[in-house]
Each structure stands twice: as structure tokens, then as C-alpha cells.
């Protein structure tokens, strides 16, 4: 007999990382990075990502990050070569007494690399993240994304930055709607206009309340991210909802601040794990996809260059 009504499933999303464990990882990473004069950095990054994935669990099974220091080191070297190249070009033009042309080419180069770095970063990180051995994947098309990126960027310039909200949300929509979790697909449906109004309101009220409203603004931003994200598979879906309030955010941020200040920075690891725990504790997951039925569909992708370039440019991974 077939189920006529899709059965509601229960999901349990949790972060189990402890500050003490993360502290150990941070310290060992620092130690090894110092001892190796920085060369250890890619391995340190891999270890940190492995920790965060490994401590996040869905229905009591952890996620896993399989990226290795070796892969990231190769990407790291390529990223260094790329930036050296750009600097060299700038240097040549400065030598030719054309410093402005050199600067222009340098920034254009960085700018051209930006969408490629975002694309590469998502392909790499998604492919190297899994749950119960089922890989995530990013199926965005490189050329299409680059074209869209520049189109949105031009619109942002022409509108003196107002289009920035649409830029942000369109990009998020494109990227997240191309993320796969095995044979399930993510979807993000936000709207630049809504996002613009929300931020305008947040900005003005924060000014009026001398900053106090910023926690509620933060709550809105988080909610806008979480609530618009969903997972789909064969007509079934999983929806995410934020349960965090502005008060919750105020508590989190202020405690973290005190924690860091009064421990002279030592509490950093605990502040981070508390924040992660907070995030996953305040996401409600509802839906009817059977998580036991996911199939492996996404390919392996081991080139970390995009991810390392993003790191050099200091772009946050989540857009």
C-alpha cells in the first residue's frame, strides 16, 4: 500500500563542539603554523573545517569535511602565484611610470578573479562535505555565474549601490539553488526588494535606538537567510525556520563580548562554539524527506584554488 499523505519526518540538527576541544585545535594550529613559519596554514584551515563539520550533526550523524591540507596547500600555492602575477604586472607599470594603469589593471584583475573564486570555493567545499558518506555538490555554471556577477555588479554601480541588496540576494539565490545534497536539491527564495527594506528599517532603527536595535536587525538578517532556505527531493521538501529572537541575539553577542574581554582573548574558542551551538539550536527543521533514502549523485572535486583565492581576498564563505 502506498502512502497517500507524505509522512512527516523528524529531524534533529545539532552542534556538539565543545569550546575546550576547539581551543585545542586552535592552539595546535597556531603552534604548528608558527613552527613552520606559516606553511602549515592550509592544513590548519582543513583541521578547523573538519572540526566544525564533524561536530555538526543531523539526526545524530555528523557531517564530515574531507578536504585535506595537501589539496588546500596546492590551491594555496596557485593562489600565491596568481597574486604574485598581479603584483608583478602592477610593478612593471609602476616601473614604466604608469602607476595608475598598473593599479587599474591590478584591481581589475582582482575583480575578475572574484566570481571565479566564489564558484571554485563552492565547488570545492560542497564536494568535500558529506553526511553519512553522501556528498554535497555545487552545480552552478561558471560562465553563467561570471556573466550574472558582472551584470549585477554594473547595475549596483549604476544605481549608486542601491542594487547591492538585489546583487546580494540574487547571488545567494543562484549559489544556493545550485547546491545538491546527494539527490536532494537546495533552494533559496529571497527577494532583493524585501531584503533592501529590511536592511533600511534595521539601519534607521539602529540609529534611532543608539545601536540597541542592532540585535533585532541581526535577528532579521539571520531569519531571512534561514527561512528562505529549503531542501527538495521528488516532490517532498524540508523547510527551515529560525526561532531566534532579538533578545536571544543580544544575549549571545554580549556574553561573547564579555567572554573574550575578560579572558583576554583566551575565551575566543568558547565564543565561537557557543555561536555555532546557538545557530543550530535556533533552526527548526520540518518536512517529509526521508533522510535514509538519499543517493550518492555528486562528483568529487579536489581543486581548492578557488577556496584559497577567496581566503586571500577575505571573502566570507557564506554569501
Amino acid at each position, binding site marked *: 500500500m502506498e502512502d497517500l499523505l507524505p509522512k512527516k519526518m523528524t529531524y534533529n540538527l545539532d552542534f556538539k563542539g565543545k569550546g575546550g576541544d576547539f581551543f585545542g585545535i586552535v592552539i595546535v594550529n597556531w603552534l604548528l603554523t608558527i613552527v613552520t613559519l606559516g606553511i602549515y596554514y592550509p592544513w590548519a584551515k582543513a583541521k578547523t573545517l573538519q572540526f566544525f563539520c564533524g561536530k555538526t550533526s543531523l539526526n545524530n550523524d555528523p557531517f564530515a569535511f574531507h578536504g585535506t591540507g595537501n589539496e588546500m596547500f596546492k590551491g594555496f600555492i596557485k593562489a600565491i602565484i596568481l597574486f604574485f602575477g598581479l603584483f608583478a604586472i602592477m610593478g612593471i607599470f609602476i616601473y614604466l611610470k604608469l602607476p595608475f594603469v598598473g593599479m587599474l589593471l591590478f584591481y581589475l584583475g582582482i575583480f575578475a578573479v572574484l566570481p571565479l573564486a566564489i564558484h571554485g570555493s563552492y565547488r570545492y567545499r560542497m564536494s568535500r562535505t558529506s553526511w553519512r558518506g553522501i556528498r554535497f555538490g555545487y552545480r552552478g555554471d561558471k560562465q553563467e555565474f561570471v556573466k550574472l556577477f558582472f551584470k549585477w555588479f554594473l547595475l549596483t554601480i549604476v544605481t549608486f549601490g542601491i542594487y547591492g541588496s538585489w546583487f546580494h540576494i540574487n547571488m545567494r539565490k543562484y549559489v544556493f539553488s545550485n547546491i545538491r545534497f546527494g539527490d536532494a536539491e537546495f533552494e533559496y527564495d529571497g527577494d532583493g526588494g524585501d531584503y533592501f527594506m529590511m536592511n533600511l528599517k534595521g539601519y534607521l532603527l539602529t540609529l534611532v535606538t543608539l545601536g540597541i536595535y542592532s540585535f533585532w536587525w541581526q535577528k532579521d538578517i539571520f531569519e531571512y537567510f534561514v527561512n528562505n532556505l529549503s531542501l527538495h527531493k521528488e516532490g517532498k521538501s524540508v523547510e527551515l525556520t529560525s526561532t531566534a529572537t532579538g533578545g536571544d541575539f543580544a544575549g549571545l553577542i554580549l556574553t561573547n563580548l564579555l567572554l*573574550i574581554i575578560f579572558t583576554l582573548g583566551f575565551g575566543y574558542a568558547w565564543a565561537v562554539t557557543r555561536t555555532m551551538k546557538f545557530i543550530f539550536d535556533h533552526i527548526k527543521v520540518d518536512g517529509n524527506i526521508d533522510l535514509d533514502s538519499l543517493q550518492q549523485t555528486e562528483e568529487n572535486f579536489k581543486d581548492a584554488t578557488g577556496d584559497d583565492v577567496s581566503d586571500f581576498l577575505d571573502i566570507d564563505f557564506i554569501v
Partner: protein
Amino acid sequence: MLQAEAILYDGKSSVPQNIIVFLDKYKHALSFQTTKDAKNEWHIKDIVFETLDTGLQLQYQGTDAVQIIKISDTDFINKIKVFRKENGHENWYEKLINSGFKTHVLLALLIFTLIGLTYVYVIPWFGEKAVVIIPESYDNTLGSSFVEQSLLFSEVDSAKTKSLNAFANELQLNNTKPLHFIYVNEDVVNAFALPDGTIVVYSGIVNKMEDYDELVALLGHESAHVNSRHAMKMLCRNLSGYIFISAILGDTNGVMAVIGDNVNSLQSLSFSRKFEEEADLKGLEIVTKNNVDPNGMSNLFKRLQSNGKMTIPQFLSSHPMTEERIKYINMLNKGKKHKIQENVKLKTLFQELKE
């Protein structure tokens, strides 16, 4: 053979499969059988072990995907742990991570001490050495822009400036670049030197002096600052300190950066003390070289002391404690016989300034 019930995720789907895992102590491997395939064998060295609160998770990189086994049998988990330890399967990284919270705190303190020592000793030294790379012409640009700013609201006495320059011309100041002196009518008990060789003297300090040897000591001290490029050295030290701090804290947040910034400015106060001491000693050399009474130097410090508070431009602040300065200058003068010769020209010019 040791065995336990476990759950397998085969890397093809997320369906949990019940299996029995065996620990083969001779082959150093774990083996199991699924309903579909033949026997699987994972070498312990190839497995990534992770402790969860529900038990132990084993990850194994298969040809295409990662396969996972979850074991919750505590007895089996402990035996595997002991077996791995006995056979040296734990790698050095695991050992470091599992070395416990106390060790990590100790390591953290060690790293902080190391960073602190680098910051206090290595970085300033490095910054100072870096001054050599900066061309002297930059000292001039920096100095003249400062002169324009700082003398904007000051009343420069052109007649006395002339006398002051004549006074200085009578002296051998060990300078490598031309020095020019400016006399400002303002009741400030101080003087300062700029990197381009401009030395500003306030009427407040000159009026307190009783003899010309004190003015020689003052000019000697300020010239020493210029000769040793102290301003540029300070700038380089502060800048390298700032770069170091922000590089270290680069990956944390803004709060830390603000703390770091303040730490750096506190540090730079004591940096300049070292330079003041150096200028005192080199200034004293200038005094004796010109056959002037070295007691002028300690008298000069007494004038500063009697004034109590000093207002000094920010980046030249914090002289060593006046009493301390008098002490070490007297120490240096003691027992040494210097040739002292009264210079009438200096005396007359000094009187002109005092009028």
C-alpha cells in the same frame, strides 16, 4: 576474534546497514561483510577515527566515496583504542590534540610568551634596522609638514630666532644635515626636534635658564635626536609593531584589534624613553666637545623638574624621570675632567635671548 555490531554507510546511499565488525589483530585491520559484496577489509592505518557522544565513528576513503562505520559497543571501542595505542597507530597530530586541556593551555601561554618576546625585542629591533631603507629625504618631507602644522598657531620671534641660530652656529653639534632653529614666544618649558633638522625652542624654557651652558645642553640633546633619526626610528618601530599585532590578530575580530592597538601605543611610550636617554648621552658629548660646563645638563633637568608638568607633542613624549636623568648625568660627569672655557659670544647671544 573481537567483534561488535555496527552500522555501515556504504557511500552510495544514506541507508543504514547493520553489519558485524571484526578486529583482526594479526592483519591490523577491521573486516566486515555486507549482504551484497564479499568481505571488506580496512587497514587501521587508513581509517580516520572520531569519537562522538554516541560512540566511535570510522571513516574510510573508498575508491569513490567515503564509507562510514558507527560503533556504539563501549567494550569494543576501548579495545580498539588500546590496540591502536599499543601499536603506535595514533599519529603525532592525534597525540597533540588528545594531550589534554592543561597541555593546550600551557602551549597557549608558551605561544603568547613567544609572541610577546618577539613583539618587545625582535620587532622594534627589526623596525629600527628598517630605517636604513627609508631615504633621508623622507625625514625632511615628514618634518616640514609637521612644522607647518605645529607652528600654525605659534608666535615665531624672528629676531630671537636669528640670535638662536647664531648661538647654534658657534657650536659643533655633530650634525650630518643642516639644522635650523626656531624660537617661539610661548610659556612652554620645552623644546622639540623634527626629523628634517628643525629644532623648536620655546621662550618658556629659555627664560628659566640661568646660564648659557644650559642652552647648549638643550641644543645638544635635540640635535642628538635629529642626528640619530629618532623620529623616523620611532615611526618605524611603531609601524612594524602595529603591522605585527594586526597580522597576529588578523583572524580574530575587531575587539581584539582595538585591544592590540592600545597595547601598541602603550609600548611606544617606553620606546621613546630609550631614545631620550640616548639623546641625553649624545647631548652631553656635544656639551663637553664644545668646552662647555657639563653641569649645564643637570641644571637643565632641574628646570624641567621645577616646572612639574610638561606639554610635549605626542610623538616626542615621555622623557625619562627627571631625577633619574640628573642622577645618571652626574654619574657620568663625576671624576672626569673636562676642559671648560668660557665663551663670551655664546654668553652675549644667550643674554639677547633672555631679554
